[in-house]
């Protein structure tokens, strides 16, 4: 009998190299072109001057960095941190019990619940944000249902509501994964040893799901920090955030170097957060 497609003898080392090249090549090329080049560009733009109509003039300057410490922009950064932190805290408070509940549902309901969590992602983001203006506006649904005249739109509350609504699933999913993995016997053992439900949660469940908490917080904080659509639509353009500022620098003021410097500052914040998250995960 003839063996079809018998592999040619290749030295195992070359085979591995070839394999690594074939499988890693496209990914590496993709990352190099679409991630590292833009990053390198952002990094290089931060030390040059702006062209009068946008673009870059290749004259070295450190002005962009000193501008970063202008109280005006520090204020903007602080506002963004405040909004993102509030969003993350609310997402955690809402997300943890939700994830806990889903993890303890019977299998079929689990799937249904998870699909329901992800379902909003199937609709366009902008449309969902605009929908909130209908709910929150002066003569909107909430006020007319309650018969009140509350000011719900165009303030920080509206921005946090929008961010929370948009990114809550990013909190629930990693938390669910962490809680689901937890061996129920640990909780039973804790109860058998006389711990109350609260103590079990505090001493067993929470510490073991902390990596999930860290991941969830990161997933919510990061996009909330940089978002510009929600502050624009639900904030009525009355709140400047890092996201709206970077967008304005690139598209309205066409100050690419300063926009890049702001973007770099955001990236640095994210790196710090990633380090914290990986530290928490390793400890867990």
């Amino acid at each position, binding site marked *: 009998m003839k063996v079809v497609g018998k592999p040619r003898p290749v030295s195992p080392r070359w085979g591995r190299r070839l394999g690594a090249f074939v499988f890693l090549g496209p990914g590496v090329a993709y990352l190099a072109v679409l991630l590292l080049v833009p990053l390198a560009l952002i990094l290089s733009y931060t030390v040059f001057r702006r062209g009068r109509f946008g673009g870059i003039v290749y004259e070295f300057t450190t002005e962009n960095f000193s501008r970063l410490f202008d109280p005006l922009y520090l204020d903007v950064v602080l506002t963004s941190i405040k909004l993102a932190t509030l969003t993350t805290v609310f997402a955690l408070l809402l997300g943890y019990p939700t994830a806990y509940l889903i993890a303890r549902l019977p299998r079929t309901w689990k799937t249904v619940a998870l699909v329901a969590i992800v379902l909003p992602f199937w609709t366009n983001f902008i449309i969902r944000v605009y929908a909130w203006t209908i709910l929150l506006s*002066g003569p909107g649904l909430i006020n007319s249902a309650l018969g009140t005249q509350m000011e719900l739109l165009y303030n920080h509350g509206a921005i946090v509501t929008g961010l929370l609504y948009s990114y809550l699933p990013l909190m629930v999913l990693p938390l669910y994964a962490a809680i689901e993995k937890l061996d129920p016997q640990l909780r039973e053992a804790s109860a058998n040893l006389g711990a109350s439900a609260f103590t079990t949660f505090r001493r067993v469940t929470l510490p073991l799901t902390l990596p999930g908490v860290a991941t969830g917080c990161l997933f919510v904080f990061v996009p909330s920090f940089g978002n510009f659509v929600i502050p624009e639509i639900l904030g009525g353009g009355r709140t400047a955030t890092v996201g709206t500022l970077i967008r304005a620098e690139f598209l309205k003021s066409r100050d690419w170097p300063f926009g890049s410097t702001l973007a770099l500052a955001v990236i640095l914040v994210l790196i710090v957060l990633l380090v914290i998250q990986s530290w928490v995960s390793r400890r867990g």
Partner: protein
Amino acid sequence: MSRIRYTRRLPVVVVATGLALAVAACGGESSTDSAKPAPSAAAQLDAKADLSKQSLTVTVWPGYTPKELAEKAKAELKVSKVDIVEHDTNETAMAKLTTQAGESIDVAFVSGQYAQALNEQGLLEPIHPELIPNLSNLYPEATQLSYDKGNKFSVPYTWGTTGICYRSDLVKAEPKSWNDILKPPAWADKKVTMLATERWLALPALKVLKFSVNTTKDEEIAKAKELLLAAKPHVIYDDVTFGQKLQSGEAVMSEAWDGWCPTTDAKKNIKFVVPSEGSDLWVDTMVIMKSSKNKEAAHALINYILNPEIHSWAAANINYKVPNKAAMDKVEVPEGSLLGISPAELLNGEAAIDLGEASVKYTRLSTEVAAK
């Protein structure tokens, strides 16, 4: 062994590739304002040039010219090709026109102050009036625009002004002054929208203070900032959807570009007024790039667009006034339409001119207003 070495080196290789590509990308762009050649002399153009050997690339805002313009112009002018490319904003157009990408463009549509800036950089071909006989269709006022008196390097395509667009059934008193926007009465609190785009954000305050919309004096801009900050708790900023907000009643007064104010709405409850302190005059223009190799065809295209049949399209279809008397005479002005604003009234407005490096003062102003 080999495998470990291979994967260890991988990030280095990736970073090196990334940097190499980035450097290559940087090198590809030319610096935009290090050299500022003076506007140079007009090229020698041949009125009888064979246009069939010329092709045109035009950059314009989406939906700003008739859909079939490229096709019709190609047939009419007998040029070999007409390509229409688009830009969303003046700023993107400028980014395109001031770098190498601009060399492929023959005709560009930009606002007046941007045409002025392009001309100052020596990037525009002077208009050769003998190649554009249809210039005679323009209103006399359209040759007296402050950024380019005598249409030396630009030909106006549309023009208009900024004012207050309001719900006549919901306001308790008709707005007359920019103060109605900046210090809204209690019944209009938070039901007023302002434009957030830099120069227009400052416009109402500058006009109330009787300053020029083109001021670059720090103390004048600082005074305007005070007024704008005082207004902030009472207004919403909206550049895009104020028309809808007025229609829904969520807003009762809006600082608005005339073409964006839905006065012809079926309910007839939306009106437009130019406040007593005066306003601005904006003009969108057509310019020919110095680098164009198809200048005769470019002039022929502008001449073609100035035909009343073509130019009236903008007024009839997208509700923009055109500075072309012959074209406006052809247009039926519907009741309530702002197309009725006369050229003389428009010329009362102060035309925005390019502020050069001082324009960053307005950028900072708008960030300060947003951040406080």
